[in-house]
């Protein structure tokens, strides 16, 4: 209570300063008058009495100051005074202040933008209970370098029973479903997630309405109940509060809405699907087979169990399972924390970018510090006057710091604006879903705190040293000297400024080298021939619901669809494939080349299998090297090998006409009817992946969704419209989705390297600009300081070119030292981005040399302008001024 009253009084003392001051004055005057009266009573004449009183009283102002001190408002008052003073100084030098604030806005803005992404993607906890205790469990096949493989249902049953490290393990599997269609309105394809009934308890998610699935639901209700995401509930059902408990039609079947998920729910950063259904063993073909890797597993760690312990236990469990089942020989398990797994491809680039943005801010600070030093020289006289009037060193330092702090805060506020704009551009630059949780980027308390902290640290960083130096009485010129050139302080601060520029050049060089490497690598990556033609292709996904399209009719459906599509005059060719280029997932399976000896260790060969319809290679522009394409008329599923697959499986023989068996029980196998050129449809760089293409009739039971590729030179909407109307003739209830041109698909596959490249290039450009300004500033300041000397030299017969050379040499020398230091620093730091680079080594000598030359050229240019000014000095004026 007392504290509050005291605080209020102090605040009043601050806000009603005039009143408080008047009170103090009144009190002092009263005292003085009483003193005068006393002296008069003692018999002194009025004048003498007054003098005596004044003498005994001493300086009134000193007491007032002390009385104020006793009230504890001085610090605050000084701060207010310094702020007012700083604002006045800023108004006096608006150009300078604007330059500093803008430089800071750029630096702080870049940092805040990257930090806001780091915050959303890496720092914010996942919206589950104790997300730190959640783990993703993969199957892994160490011999075949497949560390993150889906889990089979049979594995899950064993793992769940035998492990001692998880409270429980749950499975989920992506799928599709459909709402509407026909009479029920525009069909919408839904992303369905099939989950085991213990999924939500393991995840620790809670319902926004109704209830989520609980263990035991599968036995009681089967797959009748569904849980909707908040998004679907609001989009299609108007967030109706009575929906829970009602029946809806999904994919042609009646489902009971059991509950609604909360708005913030996501499935590991993904949108989290639209609808959740219970995963029943009957939905998985060959469910008892341990090699049927179809589902993803999440698990909750028991209290006190670490990820490393979980890993050890799961490896032991998997080894026991593998010992019992020969078809999982060589398989093990792999345990990861959820958040680190979600962000595993993005965290390193983000942290590198954050470091790069910090470097930019640091360079900005150096530039401003250098400016402040220059200005400190110019303000030496002002500070000398203040010191003479009794300002202490502490007071001067505080005042100068308040000035830089204020500038930094203004820069920070502008930087926040810059970052909001930059982040918005960033989010647009990144295709949906390629960076998890990016859409959660928002200005929040943590971000504001980060900006404020960055601004204050920045202010201290660029303000403290210049302030300490400017306020140092040993370095300051006397009043008499009046800030004359060439005093000890000036020489020292010139040396300091040169050191700053050298640092700046070195740091900028590191950034430019990094950007140079990344840009080259990106260009090389783009120039890699993908082995297919992405032009004039439209891609769209189509999913056939199991209910109306049994496995046996899928093949015929696609045959008539593609026949009709190619009959359309706008369409030149059409085909379908189970996964589009660069799409994840797909089929990887055990294979056995018939006639080849088994592997020496008895383990199984694995290969990706891409399921296609006839015409795929022609539409994609993948050359058929030998044999023929698969055909609609093939009685059994036929195969085509990519040339690297053919070489791998039959290194010493012709693969054409040979057969490959799939799984352990297959003894007949499928015939290889053709060999095509390698195409990079899975990865941009590296050796082409050996691929087995299979006619879609052979995979009807596992492939329900295909990407239809339509070729034609009409614009995308026209082609899609043609495809849609053709599809409607066959089935008006089927939606087409994920509609993109093949060029967009290819583009999206390089989104992340493009983002890294763009951002790093922007940072490097800003750093280069700042370094140029820095060199220019130092050289031109030094010229202005040496006008006298230049004049003297010219008067003594130096030619203009000599003087120019002298000035340029100074700039070049600084740059050269900075460049050498920067090259060493780059050599040490570029290995950090080695994993981003393709076709360029982190120590690429050409890049290093090129960037060094670039900086030399910039340094020469930045020194040339002041050098020319130096030669225009009129010797007479220069010497008189000196």
């Amino acid at each position, binding site marked *: 209570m007392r504290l509050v009253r*005291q605080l209020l009084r102090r605040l009043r003392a601050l806000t009603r300063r005039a009143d408080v001051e008047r009170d103090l004055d009144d009190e002092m005057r009263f*005292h003085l008058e009483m003193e005068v*009266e006393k002296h008069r009573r003692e018999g002194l004449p009025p004048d003498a009495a007054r003098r005596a009183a004044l003498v*005994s009283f*001493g300086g009134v102002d000193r*007491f007032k100051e002390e009385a*104020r001190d*006793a009230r504890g408002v001085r610090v605050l008052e000084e701060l207010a005074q310094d702020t007012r003073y700083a604002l006045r100084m800023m108004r006096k030098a608006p150009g300078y202040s604007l330059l500093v604030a803008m430089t800071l806005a750029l630096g702080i803005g870049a940092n805040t933008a990257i930090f806001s992404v780091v915050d959303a993607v890496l720092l914010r906890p996942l919206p589950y209970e104790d997300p730190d205790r959640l783990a993703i469990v993969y199957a892994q096949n160490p011999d075949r370098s497949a560390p993150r493989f889906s889990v089979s249902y049979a594995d899950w049953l064993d793992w769940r029973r035998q492990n001692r490290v998880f409270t429980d393990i749950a499975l989920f599997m992506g799928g599709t479903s459909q709402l509407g269609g026909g009479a029920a309105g525009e069909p919408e394809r839904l992303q369905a997630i099939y989950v085991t009934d213990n999924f939500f308890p393991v995840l620790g998610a809670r319902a926004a309405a109704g209830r989520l699935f609980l263990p035991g639901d599968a036995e009681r209700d089967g797959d009748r109940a569904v849980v909707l995401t908040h998004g679907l509930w609001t989009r299609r059902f108007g967030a109706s509060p009575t929906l829970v408990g009602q029946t809806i039609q999904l994919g042609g079947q009646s489902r009971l809405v059991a509950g609604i998920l909360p708005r913030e729910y996501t499935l590991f950063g993904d949108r989290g699907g639209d609808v959740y259904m219970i995963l029943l063993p009957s939905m998985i073909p060959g469910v008892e087979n341990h090699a049927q890797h179809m589902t993803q597993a999440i698990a909750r760690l028991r209290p006190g169990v670490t990820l490393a312990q979980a890993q050890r236990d799961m490896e032991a469990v998997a080894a026991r399972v593998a010992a019992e089942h020969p078809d999982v020989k060589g398989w093990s398990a792999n345990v990861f924390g959820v958040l680190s797994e979600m962000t595993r491809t993005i965290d390193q680039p983000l942290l590198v970018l954050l470091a790069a943005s910090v470097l930019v801010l640091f360079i900005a600070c150096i530039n401003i510090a250098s400016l402040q030093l220059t200005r400190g020289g110019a303000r030496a006289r002002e500070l000398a006057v203040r010191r003479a009037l009794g300002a202490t060193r502490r007071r001067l330092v505080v005042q100068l710091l308040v000035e830089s702090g204020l500038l930094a805060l203004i820069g920070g506020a502008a930087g926040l604006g810059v970052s909001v704009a930059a982040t918005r551009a960033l989010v647009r630059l990144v295709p949906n879903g390629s960076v998890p949780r990016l859409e959660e980027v928002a200005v929040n308390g943590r971000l504001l705190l980060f900006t404020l902290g960055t601004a204050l640290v920045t202010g201290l960083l660029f303000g403290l040293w210049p302030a300490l130096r400017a306020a140092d009485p040993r370095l300051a010129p006397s009043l008499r000297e009046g800030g004359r050139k060439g005093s000890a302080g000036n020489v020292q601060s010139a040396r300091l400024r040169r050191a700053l520029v050298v640092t700046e050049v070195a740091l900028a060089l590191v950034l430019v080298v990094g950007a140079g490497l990344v840009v080259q690598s990106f260009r090389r990556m783009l120039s890699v021939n993908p082995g297919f033609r992405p032009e004039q292709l439209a891609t769209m996904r189509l999913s056939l619901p199991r209910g109306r399209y049994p496995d046996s009719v899928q093949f015929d459906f696609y045959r008539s669809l593609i026949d009709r599509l190619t009959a359309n005059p706008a369409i030149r060719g059409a085909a379908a494939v189970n996964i589009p280029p660069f799409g994840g997932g797909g089929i990887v399976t055990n294979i056995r080349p018939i006639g080849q000896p088994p592997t020496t260790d008895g383990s199984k060969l694995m290969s990706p299998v891409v399921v296609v319809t006839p015409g795929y290679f022609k539409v994609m522009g993948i050359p058929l090297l030998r044999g023929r394409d698969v055909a609609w008329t093939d009685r059994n599923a036929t195969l085509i090998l990519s040339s690297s697959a053919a070489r791998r499986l039959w290194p010493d023989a012709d693969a054409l006409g040979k057969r490959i068996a799939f799984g352990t029980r297959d003894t007949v196998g499928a015939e290889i009817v053709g060999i095509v050129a390698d195409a990079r449809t899975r990865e941009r760089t590296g050796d082409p992946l050996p691929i087995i293409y299979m006619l879609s009739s052979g995979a009807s039971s596992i492939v329900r969704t295909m990407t239809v590729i339509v070729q034609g030179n009409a614009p995308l909407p026209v082609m899609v419209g043609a495809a849609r109307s053709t599809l409607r003739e066959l089935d008006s209830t089927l939606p087409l989705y994920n509609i993109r041109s093949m060029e967009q698909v290819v583009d999206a596959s390089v989104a992340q390297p493009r983002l890294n490249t763009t951002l790093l290039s922007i940072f490097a450009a800003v750093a280069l600009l700042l370094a140029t300004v820095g060199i220019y500033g130092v050289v031109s300041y030094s010229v202005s300081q040496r006008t006298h000397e230049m004049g003297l030299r010219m008067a003594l017969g130096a030619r203009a070119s000599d003087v120019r050379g002298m000035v340029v040499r100074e700039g070049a020398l600084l740059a050269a030292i900075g460049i050498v230091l920067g090259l060493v620093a780059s050599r040490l730091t570029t290995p950090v981005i080695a994993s981003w680079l393709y076709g360029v080594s982190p120590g690429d000598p050409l890049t290093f040399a090129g960037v060094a030359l670039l900086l030399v050229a910039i340094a020469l240019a930045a020194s040339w302008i002041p050098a020319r000014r130096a030669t225009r000095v009129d010797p007479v004026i220069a010497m008189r001024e000196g």
Partner: protein
Amino acid sequence: MPVDNNDVLQGTLDLLILKAVSLDPMHGWGIAQRIQQMSREVLQVNQGSLYPALHRLEDREWIAAEWGVSENNRRAKYYSLTKTGRRQLAAEAATWRRFSAAVDAILATS
């Protein structure tokens, strides 16, 4: 001019001020005079110490201030002892007595 060694010891000034205003409210000048009189002209209070001390004590809420009219019809700031101030006075007086008795005892042993 007050002689330096008669200047009131820092710290004891608070006690003297509290004592001076304990009888009835008094303005700053009056407090200085009263301390001088009560000490039989031995102790003189420097204005430079008095006013900061008054403001400090007011800040601690040991004394309260109020504008009033002085004996010669002038506006003056009157200080009076608060409840906490009275407790503080009793405590500080006791401490002082103990301290001075202790010093006396030491001096007496010589």
